[in-house]
């Protein structure tokens, strides 16, 4: 006898590491409530459904689709369009889908350089034929095809409209559980159209128990260069903690264990560019240039401030670790690719 039909649930994994899936399973026995409330319609990591099954569903058949992973190749993009069409609620789940995350860092280089690093230059790679993946390969039986590797990594919302964004690398299990609980019990969600769910609205600092004093930074340290004091604000000690420019929701997990916040929950409300905001924040806490400026030599002042900033190694990679694909510029520029063509 058929019971009342359950709503349909899907979870998909594009360019990502799989951590989002693990975090989902980290909900513990709450996952059973999800199973009880939903029928799984597509979840390649967990259940054996094929893309063809999804294609055959009527449009809007899936009630809730959690899409994790960035859009790195043509397959990711096709799946994004397909799942958008078949889903009532599409959630950009995790940092990759919502802002590009670690795959998005490759926007600081070219696709060609990425392929070279992976297939040719990596010291642990053994590739004597120097073979690289080709989208089309002719074999006696015909032509075989693999997905096309894109020049630029995109977030999910740069490819299809999303209803909700759930940030985090990965989203914390207790946040996933809270969101699933709200959906199952019918608590109304915020209006769709890209609202953030499963995260806080303040900065990570608000959740961080460290003691915060006036910051006067003389130089910056990379994590391996210093043993931080466990009680005092990490930024105050010259460690580039992203907490001040990052949305809360994780419970300040990293700073609690003496590790700087890397910014995975993304920018706060009203901020378009997490990295640029971090530049502004850092500029306020550097000591150089404070105090009396009477009779100061301008070039000397600029040089001294520049020297402090030089101790902050790799600002783009640090400030945009999770946000590069979703930043204002989205991608680095390369001469001979963009510049010359633009001038032609």
């Amino acid at each position, binding site marked *: 006898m058929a019971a009342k039909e359950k709503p349909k649930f899907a979870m998909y994994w594009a360019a990502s590491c799989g951590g989002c899936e693990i975090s989902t399973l980290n909900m513990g026995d709450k996952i059973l409530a999800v199973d009880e409330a939903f029928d799984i319609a597509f979840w390649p990591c967990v259940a054996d459904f094929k893309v063809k099954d999804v294609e055959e569903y009527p449009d809007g058949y899936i009630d809730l689709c959690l899409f994790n992973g960035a859009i790195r190749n043509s397959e990711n993009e096709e799946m994004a369009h397909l799942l958008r069409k078949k889903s009532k609620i599409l959630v950009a789940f995790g940092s990759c889908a919502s802002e590009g995350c670690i795959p998005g860092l490759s926007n600081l280089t070219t696709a060609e350089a990425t392929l070279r690093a992976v297939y040719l230059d990596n010291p642990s790679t053994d590739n004597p034929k120097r073979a*690289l993946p080709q*989208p089309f390969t002719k074999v006696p039986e015909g032509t075989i095809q693999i997905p*096309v*590797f894109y*020049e*630029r990594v995109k977030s999910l919302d740069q490819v299809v409209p999303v209803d909700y964004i759930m940030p985090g690398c990965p989203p914390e299990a207790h946040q996933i559980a809270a969101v699933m609980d709200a959906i199952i019990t019918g608590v109304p969600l915020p209006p769709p159209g890209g609202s953030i769910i499963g995260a806080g609205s303040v900065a990570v600092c608000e959740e961080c128990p460290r003691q915060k004093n006036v910051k006067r930074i003389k130089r910056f340290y990379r994590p391996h260069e210093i043993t931080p004091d466990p009680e005092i604000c990490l930024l105050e000690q010259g460690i580039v903690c992203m907490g001040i420019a990052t949305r809360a929701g994780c419970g300040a997990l990293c700073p609690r264990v003496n590790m700087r916040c890397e910014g995975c929950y993304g920018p706060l409300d009203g901020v378009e*560019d997490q990295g640029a*905001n971090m530049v502004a924040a850092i500029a306020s806490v550097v000591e150089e240039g404070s105090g009396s400026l009477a009779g100061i030599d301008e070039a000397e002042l600029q040089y001294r401030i520049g020297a402090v900033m030089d101790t902050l190694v790799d600002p783009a990679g640090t400030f945009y670790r999770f946000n590069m694909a979703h930043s204002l*510029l989205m991608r680095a520029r390369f001469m001979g690719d963009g*510049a010359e063509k633009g001038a032609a």
Partner: protein
Amino acid sequence: MDNAYEPVIIGFLCNWCSYRAADLAGTSRLHYAPNMRPIRVMCSARVEPQFVLKALREGADGVLIAGCHPGECHYVDGNIKALRRYELLKRMLRQLGIEEERVQLVWAAASEGNVLADAVNRMTEQLRRLGPLRWRETVLGEDGHMVEHSGEKVAKEV
């Protein structure tokens, strides 16, 4: 290069010094390049790095930030904060493939109309040599110009 190319510079000028310097340049009838689009801000420290990035993405070829000389800020040390931001932003922009000449910080007091005019002239000339930026078209490929990786390109070079 397109002969018709004229660089567009977004100028963020502080209310107390540099905007008045621009005013003075005008009332003194100084002739200088018409490429800067001035935007008055209360202080050079009002210029968030986001403003600069957005200007560059939306079609500016360069951004000029102008403020009071160090020690002369109306808000005591706003210009020093702007300088710190600029020094860090400059290093980040380098990684993003944006030439140093495209984002500049100059100090121009209210009496230095000529200093501001010279800075605009110099920057316009530098940007003419660099060519247009056209971020959306050439870097983001929004008119389809950015070549998606096809595989063959790499294979041939190896």
